[in-house]
Every structure is written in structure tokens, then in C-alpha cells.
């Protein structure tokens, strides 16, 4: 995408900070819910061809659980919170105290607990980002799905698709006890949102 060819390091750093702020607040929210420390890896800001996007969560066919919400307002985009089914099971077991009956399937109760957790985390990601940038970022009602990663994340690439064949991902991973991946946040801003984010954060636009 031509738009990103000349991305200066400062812009990449700013987008990393966007991931830091958003996911940092979501991690705090999660660790409060779990009453355990949740750490975060350094955010990755990557321009990826569509093909490679699903590889960040294990490939197009790997089954993942995802909370998706569309961001509307000044800087529109797509926000995903992606979990492996195992991590999702662990989360409902610990958090909601739900007795897990099957490791493969999700009961209605578990599903609704996950959707609520997703709501809380995605909401805190977005509200902290809106505060940080002073941009209006309004979440749509989050939706939950479990399916092939390619099919799920593909949904977040449509707006980027009108501009080119790659998308910019701000990818932040939650970690517990130094190793276990608890979930991953992806923010995929629409192409026209970048200028608004940069301007809001005082990045000079002439480079």
C-alpha cells in the first residue's frame, strides 16, 4: 500500500504506543477480573499482506475464538480480541466459576460469559485509546465467533482491501507467567484513519 511506504520510524513508534495504551488498559482490566498479574508483550506494528495476517494466530485454518467490534467515529477501524479455544476455556473456568463440561464445545453459559469478558476488554482498549488521542472512537456492539482464523480475521481486512492488498496490524499479546499466551489484540485501522491518529498525537505530517 503506497500509503505506508514512507512510514517514518516515529509513526511506527506512535502506533506501537497506541497498542500499548489500548492493550495496557485491557490487560489491567483482565488482571483485575482474574486477580492475577497479566503482562503484555511489546506491541508489534506490521504491514502484512492479507495472506500473512492469519499466520499471526497460527494459520488460516487454525480454530480461534474472537471478539470483534467495528470502531466508528473519527478514526474508524476493526478491533479483534483473539483467543485459542483452550485459553478461552481456562478463562471462563477461572473467571466465571463455570463448571466446564466439555473441552471441545462451549455451552450457552460459557459463550455468554466470554462475550461479556470480550465486551469489557475491548471496551477498555477503545476507551483508553479515545482518551489518549482525544478522538471519538465509538464501539459497535461486539460479536463473538469461533471458527477458522482466516475466515474471522478476513472480516477485518475489507476496508484495507479497497486500498491495496495488505493491512496494518497493531498486534499486542497478553502473557501470563512469562509464557502462556492468554490472548491477542488486533487493531486494524481503516486506511484513512492513520492521518487522523497521527495528527491527533502531534506527529508531523510532512515526512
Amino acid at each position: 500500500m503506497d500509503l505506508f511506504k514512507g512510514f517514518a520510524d516515529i509513526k511506527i513508534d506512535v502506533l506501537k504506543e497506541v497498542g500499548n495504551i489500548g492493550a495496557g488498559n485491557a490487560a489491567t482490566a483482565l488482571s483485575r477480573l482474574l486477580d492475577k498479574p497479566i503482562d503484555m508483550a511489546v506491541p508489534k506494528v506490521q504491514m502484512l499482506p492479507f495472506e500473512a495476517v492469519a499466520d499471526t494466530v497460527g494459520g488460516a485454518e487454525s480454530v480461534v475464538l474472537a471478539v470483534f467490534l467495528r470502531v466508528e467515529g473519527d478514526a474508524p477501524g476493526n478491533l479483534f480480541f483473539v483467543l485459542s479455544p483452550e485459553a478461552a476455556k481456562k478463562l471462563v473456568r477461572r473467571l466465571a466459576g463455570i463448571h466446564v463440561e466439555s473441552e471441545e464445545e462451549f455451552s450457552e453459559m460459557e459463550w455468554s460469559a466470554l462475550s461479556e469478558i470480550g465486551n469489557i476488554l475491548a471496551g477498555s482498549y477503545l476507551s483508553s485509546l479515545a482518551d489518549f488521542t482525544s478522538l471519538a472512537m465509538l464501539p459497535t456492539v461486539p460479536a463473538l465467533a469461533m471458527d477458522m482464523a482466516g475466515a474471522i480475521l478476513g472480516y477485518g481486512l475489507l476496508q484495507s482491501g479497497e486500498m491495496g492488498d495488505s493491512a496494518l496490524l497493531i498486534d499486542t499479546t497478553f502473557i501470563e507467567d512469562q509464557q502462556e499466551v492468554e490472548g491477542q489484540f488486533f487493531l486494524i485501522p481503516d486506511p484513512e484513519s492513520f492521518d487522523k491518529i497521527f495528527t491527533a498525537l502531534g506527529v508531523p505530517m510532512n515526512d
Partner: protein
Amino acid sequence: MIEEQRIVKVGMADLNIIQQSGLIRTTGLGSCVGLTLYDPVVKVAGLAHVMLPASTIAREGSLNIAKYADTAVPALLQQLLAAGAEQRRIVAKMAGGSQMFTFAGTGDSLRIGPRNVESCKDKLSELGIPLLAEDTGGNYGRTIELDCETGILFIRSVQKGVKEL
């Protein structure tokens, strides 16, 4: 030991063909549509992984014709013809176009799956290519594979296993 079959992979917003034998495959179709064209006589099979319905919405500098239904279908047809297929024998099958997430609202981008399907159908009928079978819609992802020898389309999904068209 069975000889390993040749597999041609088609990525998102991409198209390709295969001849004689082997499989042509694309993975993780959600709202995207996997459209296949096939000439059973010369055994040429083509597959396009279509992402968006119409190239009129494109704002990119150089148009990727494989990405849009209205440009991908004719382009794929051209590739089949160039490989020796005859238009009157070509038949189509397709899968995908689902709605992965259910929302309260029904904005235009949320209906992208069904719109991709409609746009592919419009283009096929415009080109006079019969659509033999389809497995479209729903709310789940699909991986599809067309067998170049038989023209059978295999569709795999997480919930429903494998289906043949």
C-alpha cells in the same frame, strides 16, 4: 505408497488455474467467495478467492483484478480459455460468502458475504456460465478444494466436516 497429489494454493484476493490433475485450494473463506470454473473435457480448473463485490469501490492505484467479483470472474475465464478450455463447456461452482458475525445492525459492510455471492452470480450469468452447485451463506468459515480430474468441489468447515459438490 500413493503418489502425492499436486496442490495449487490460491491466496486471498488471488486467482490461479491447474491442468490435468491435482487439487486447487483456498483456505479460510469467510465473507470471501471461492469461485471455481472447470472444463471437464480438457481438465482445466480455475479458482478465484474473491474478497469484495465490485471494483467500482476500489481506491487503490493499481487494481488487483482477482480481488473483486466483477473483474475476477472474467479474468479467470480468460486464463481457462488461454489454457485450452472452451467457453461452452465451462461450468462453475462456488462456496463461501458467509456472515461471520451477527450484529444487531445490518450495515452494508456486514452484508459483504451475500453481496459477494450475488455479484459472482451476476457475472456468471452475464458470461453465460452455468452455476452447477454452491454452498454459500451461513455463519461459518470454509476451506475448499477442486479436484482437477473429476471437477468435484470439496468443502471443509469446522462445524460441519467435509461436504462434496
